[in-house]
């Protein structure tokens, strides 16, 4: 049913299509959490300031608290729940476990989704503010990763290990690419 207050939409999340009627005010974040029970995506501020809600929308990272669910209709959403391949963790997830890239874990789903996108941005040779020479491919360096991961706050202060984990995963990706 669609009215002035609510809209029937279909959301494609982690490869699965869901039909649901949402309050037009519902953010993508709340739709995932409250309607689809995909609570891995976290709400840290609900106003685009912390990155805890980061998901991939058509493979690019977005703050899902700043997207209305109705606007995600027809697009591909990947959340933290969609990264592992069955029992096998995504390399970024595994690196976070091995290198202790977290403490409380609340920022972690956002960090990991962001990191997956960062690795792809590096592979596509997108420059960042930390790129010395924008005519050349950016290096897979800790400096680049610090800069690119700065939209994801970690109040536990686990940045040092986050950078290690993302760098390791990015370097492995480079080797495998």
């Amino acid at each position: 049913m669609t009215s002035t207050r609510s809209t029937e939409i279909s959301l494609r999340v982690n490869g699965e299509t869901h039909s649901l009627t949402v309050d037009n005010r519902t953010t993508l974040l709340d739709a995932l959490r409250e309607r689809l029970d995909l609570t891995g995506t976290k709400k840290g501020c609900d106003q685009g300031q912390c990155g805890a809600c980061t998901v991939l929308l058509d493979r690019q990272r977005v703050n899902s608290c700043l997207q209305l669910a109705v606007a995600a209709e027809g697009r591909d959403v990947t959340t933290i729940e969609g990264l592992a391949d069955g029992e096998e963790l995504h390399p970024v997830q595994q690196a976070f476990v091995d290198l202790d890239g977290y403490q409380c874990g609340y920022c972690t789903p956002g960090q990991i989704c962001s990191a997956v996108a960062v690795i792809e941005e590096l592979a596509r040779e997108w420059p960042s503010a930390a790129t010395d020479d924008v005519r050349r491919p950016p290096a897979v360096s800790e400096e680049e990763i610090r800069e690119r991961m700065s939209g994801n706050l970690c109040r536990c202060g686990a940045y040092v290990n986050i950078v290690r984990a993302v760098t390791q995963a990015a370097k492995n990706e480079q080797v495998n690419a």
Partner: protein
Amino acid sequence: MTTPAAPPRTSATGTPHTRREGRAKVTGEARYTGDIPFAELAHGWLVTSTVARGRIRSVDTDTVLAMPGVLAVLHPGNALRLTPGAGLMGPDANLQLLQDDRVPHVGWPVALVVAETQEQARAGADALVITYDEEPYDTAFRADHPGLRPTAPSPLAMPDVDQGDPDAELAASAVVVDREYTTPEEFHNAMEPHAAMARWENGRLEVVDSNQGSYAVAQVLAALFSLDADTVRVRSEHVGGGFGSKGLRLPHTVLAVMATTILHRPVRVVLTRRQMFSLVGHRPATAQRVRLGADADGRLRVVEHETASPTSTVHEFAEQSTRHSRTLYAADAFRLRTRVVPLDVPTPGFMRAPGWAPGSFAVESAMDELAAEVGVDPIALRLRNEPETGPVSGLPFSSRNLVACLEEGARRFGWADRDPRPGVRRDGRWLLGTGVAAAAHSAGVGASTAAITAEADGTYTVRVTAADIGTGARTALGQIAADALEVSPESVRIRIADSDFGLAWLAGGSMGTASWAWAINEAAVALRKKLADLPGDMADLPPEGVTAHADTTELLAAREQRESHGYGAQFAEVAVDPASGEVRVRRMLGIFAVGRVVNPLTARNQFIGGMTWGLSMALHEEGVRDDASGGLANGDLAGYHVAANADVPLIEADWIDEHDTYNPSGIKGLGEIGIVGGAAAVANAVWHATGVRHRHLPISLERVLSGGRR
């Protein structure tokens, strides 16, 4: 009475273990309080005051009750009556929510809108019209405020100290450093907003909460709602950070309980990020005066330290900044003062290393100033003032390895080559400098209980009302229990964060692991004795297994008094751009002595996390109070900057071996010491880089450009 169990010969402890909940945390499976679905769940949204002082004149509930999905509007006119006097550490009137029409500060809870969905609750809260009778207010803190007064006596208050003859020692001093330092309001901002779900189930109040100690929260709720303690069950399996904010103040929890009691269905209340800036405590601003008098060689004759901080009109909380000066350096005389100024502001509370963090900024900066005045190396100055016993308490130290930390840190940091002159090193447009500061944090233990069951299948289950707020407690306790039982960690199940497991200290005061480990070790001893006394062998255990309990209350009370702290040395290298005022920390190193380190992987992470807070405190964090409204001008994560990834360089932390069995588990606790001294090390490095002393935090661009002015 039994004697404490000896620490076990270790194998699991002392070696790195990845977190037990690691997989759940990286896959999104770990459910935090706000993630757990409940049938018939209703959503509560808090409405907070927009005025700084006054009375509520009217609450227009009719319009909101007519909105779609709205179930109730709770306000002082219809709220449940709460029992006065409840509190975690003595009565705390902040828990008396919606009990009268007084508004003591901007951001005080004045209503709760409950609705079927979050969107409806939020819309109702936005639409609720409340009018106030406003009164003149005062939110401007300053050290010479006429309301300045001594703190009320409380178990948490550090008494004022007058020891020796400070005036005579000052007069006899060859060098006197007399300085004022200030630190701003700072806010915890755990990434997980405070959340609670409450419901009545089979005659019990069941609460899922985001907190640092479920047993303590259950006790507080029972007292507030006049319930039998057994009636209340509180759980908090996964907690997204706490830093002192999740335990003392519980507006979301109290109001969720009130709403479920009225509505007879589960209610969840989650604070917004903005609400977290006024409702869960914060570190108050401090104004500190430090006066150090020394002989020509730097030996201290006198330490004077006076700290003042604002508190609210609701409940007194004083920042105990003199904790640092009480234990760091020997002197012939001490004069220590703690003062508060009650204002129309939210009540401050414990924030990571309360007292220690701001106190260390002042004292360790002053020591650096003294070193420069005397012309002695800052490390040598500290070594020269090393005390034999607690400088103020006179008690023997349980152990103290500050000297070893300073020396090992100096070696690893490359301190020996340092040119002491300020403002003489350049790297292009950057001025470079290095700084050092000492760190300390009390190593306390709180009474706790634990139970261990030897299961019929050969595994073990440990139950303790611990909380894992990101410290890795679950994993560390697994290692501790495994060693105490002499089994592998894989055969030990750790169950935590359920008030039904009984009394336990909170994840706070750097006392959690130390307190829980002691109880677990005692329970393990009791269990092994029980098992040894059993006829037959482990294969013949009854189906429910065999359980042993322990309670450390008596053991703890029987301990002799000692001065027991962890110590550390913090080093920082900074680059300062004098044109833009930008300060970049290039590297930090911390060396700590904190007794036994259970899990090097998570311990290092905790130290580095604390040091990251030190960096953030030095350069970024500052709540700006707007005197025109009485509220915060920057109460969100865009306006209140906490260190982001690009702010944080290479930070290294390590520790020295320390054997101290004052706490029989050998653990001193390490959750907070990482922040202590960090801001001073950075500020001292900025002085070394530029020759300008920064006595006011944070060291913002404006302050660098204005030469460190207030």
